[in-house]
C-alpha cells in the first residue's frame, strides 16, 4: 500500500513536469495568440502574435517585449531602436563586417540578409533556446557571410582577435542587464576589436541612471561619443568611435538620404542629440559596477 502511494506520488510529480513547459497555441487576449511559452536556462520566453506582428518576450511582464517582427514585412522595424541602430551605416557607409551581440528574434540579421548582402555579420547569442525560437518562429536563417556563435558576448570578443567595422550591442532587457558588458574594461575590449575607423553601437534605455553611467563610461574609453535619442520610445543609441565620424551626425540631417530597405537613415539621424543631459555618475568598471541597481533607479 505504501509502495503504491509512493509510486502514485512519483507519477504525479512526473506528470506535473511534463505539463509545465510550453503552452502552444493558447489564446491569451483578443486577437493575440500565444504561440510558445517556456523557460530556457536564462529566461522565461513567450512568443505572441497579434495581427501580423510576432514578438518574443522575455520575463513575465507584458511590457518587457524584446523583439518583434512583422510577418508581412520582416525587414520593417517594429521598434524604434532597431531602426536607429542602423545609423551606424549612415556614419560608416563602407562597413564590411559587423559583430552583433544579442540576437533576439533575429530582426537585425534579417535586414542584413535582405538589404546588406555584402556585409559580413557575426551574431553572438548566449541563450541556445533564443536561437532555436528565432529559427522556428521568426524566419531567422543563416545567409552567406553570416555566422552565429552561441556564447557570452564578452567571452566571444575576448577569445576572437577578429576586427570589426561595427560592434552592435543589444543584449539587455528592460529589467536586467549583464553587468559585465557595461564596464570600462569591456568597452576597452570592444575598442581593441574595432578597425581604425570602427564604431560601437549600443542600445540603451534612457529613463534610468544606468544611462548616465553608461554614457560616462563610454566617454572614458572613446574620444567621440554620440547619443541619438528615441522620439517615440525611451530608447537611446550610443555610438562611440576613436576617430571623428564623417559626416558628423549633427551635419548630416537632410543631406543623408540613404535607406536600408524600409529604414530611413536620414530620419533616424535627426534623432542625434548634440548635448544630451547626462547626470553625474561614476564610471562603471569590473570593480565598481552597480549596473542593475542603477537600471531600476529613475
Amino acid at each position, binding site marked *: 500500500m505504501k509502495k503504491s502511494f509512493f509510486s502514485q506520488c512519483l507519477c504525479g510529480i512526473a506528470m506535473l513536469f511534463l505539463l509545465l513547459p510550453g503552452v502552444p497555441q493558447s489564446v491569451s487576449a483578443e486577437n493575440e495568440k500565444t504561440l510558445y511559452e517556456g523557460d530556457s*536556462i*536564462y529566461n522565461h520566453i513567450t512568443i505572441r502574435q497579434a495581427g501580423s506582428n510576432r514578438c518574443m518576450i522575455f520575463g513575465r511582464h507584458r511590457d518587457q517585449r524584446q523583439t518583434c517582427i512583422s510577418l508581412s514585412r520582416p525587414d520593417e522595424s517594429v521598434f524604434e531602436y532597431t531602426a536607429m541602430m542602423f545609423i551606424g551605416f549612415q556614419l560608416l557607409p563602407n562597413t564590411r563586417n559587423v559583430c552583433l551581440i544579442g540576437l533576439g528574434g533575429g530582426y537585425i540579421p534579417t535586414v542584413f540578409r535582405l538589404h546588406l548582402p555584402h556585409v559580413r555579420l557575426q551574431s553572438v547569442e*548566449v541563450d541556445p533556446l533564443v536561437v532555436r525560437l528565432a529559427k522556428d518562429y521568426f524566419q531567422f536563417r543563416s545567409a552567406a557571410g553570416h555566422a552565429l556563435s552561441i*556564447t*557570452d558576448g*564578452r*567571452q566571444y570578443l*575576448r*577569445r576572437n582577435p577578429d576586427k570589426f567595422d561595427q560592434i552592435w550591442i543589444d543584449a539587455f532587457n528592460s529589467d536586467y542587464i*549583464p*553587468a*559585465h*558588458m557595461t*564596464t570600462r*574594461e*569591456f568597452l576597452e575590449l570592444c575598442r581593441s576589436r574595432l578597425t581604425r575607423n570602427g564604431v560601437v553601437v549600443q542600445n540603451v534605455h534612457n529613463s534610468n541612471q544606468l544611462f548616465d553611467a553608461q554614457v560616462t563610461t563610454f566617454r572614458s574609453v572613446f574620444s567621440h561619443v554620440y547619443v541619438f535619442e528615441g522620439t517615440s520610445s525611451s530608447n537611446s543609441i550610443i555610438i562611440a568611435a576613436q576617430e571623428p565620424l564623417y559626416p558628423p551626425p549633427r551635419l548630416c540631417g537632410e543631406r543623408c538620404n540613404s535607406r536600408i530597405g524600409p529604414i530611413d537613415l536620414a530620419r533616424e539621424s535627426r534623432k542625434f542629440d548634440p548635448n544630451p543631459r547626462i547626470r553625474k555618475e561614476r564610471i562603471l*568598471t*569590473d*570593480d*565598481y*559596477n*552597480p549596473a542593475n*541597481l542603477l537600471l531600476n533607479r529613475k
Partner: protein
Amino acid sequence: MGLAYFAFALLLFTFGAVIMSLEILSSNLMSPYFGGSVYIWGSIISSFMVHFSIGYVLGGYLAKRAFKVSFFTFLLAVSAAWVLIIPQIHAPACNYIAEQIVDVRAGSLAAMNVLFFVPITIMAMVSPYIIGILTHYHRDSSLTAGLVLFLSTLGSFVGTNLTAFFLIDWFPVSRIIVGLGWICLATSLLVLSFRLDRKLGRASRIRL
C-alpha cells in the same frame, strides 16, 4: 560564560554574514573572465557547498578533539588574511585559468576553488565547532544548536542583503572584500584576546 556566549555569537553572526557577502561578490569577480551566464552561479554555489561540507566535517572534528578556541580563532585569522589578498590574486588567477581552460563551467569552477577554498572552508567550521565545543564544556548551554544556526543564518541574511542592495552600490568590489577581511581579522583577534580556553575550562569544572 557570558563573555564566551558573546564571543561565539559574534563569531557566528560575523562569519555568517561575510560568507554570504563573499558569495554575492564572487559573481562580480567571475563574470569578466567567464561571462554572466547561469553556469557562473552554478559554479559559485556548488563551490561554496563543497567548501561548507568540508568545513563542517573539519569543524566537528576540531570540536570533538577539543582543540583550543585560541587555535580556532587563529585559523579564522588565517581565513581573514586570505580574504585580504583576494583582490590582489583574483585578476591574475582568473586570467590564467580563463586562458588555460576554455570551458567556462570548468574554468569558473577552478577559479572559485582557487580563490575561496581556504577561507570559506575555515569559515564554515564556525557553527559545528561552536556546537561541539559547547557540548564538550557546557552541556546545558543556553546557546543551543538551534540558536547557533539561527545566529549564523541571521548573519548570512544580513550579509546577503547588505552586499547586494547597498555595498555594491557604494564601493568597488575590491574595497568591499578588503573591508570584509579586516572585519574578520578584527573579530578573530578580539575573540582571541578574550582567552576563552581558561574561562571555558573553569566553567566546565564548576558544572561538573
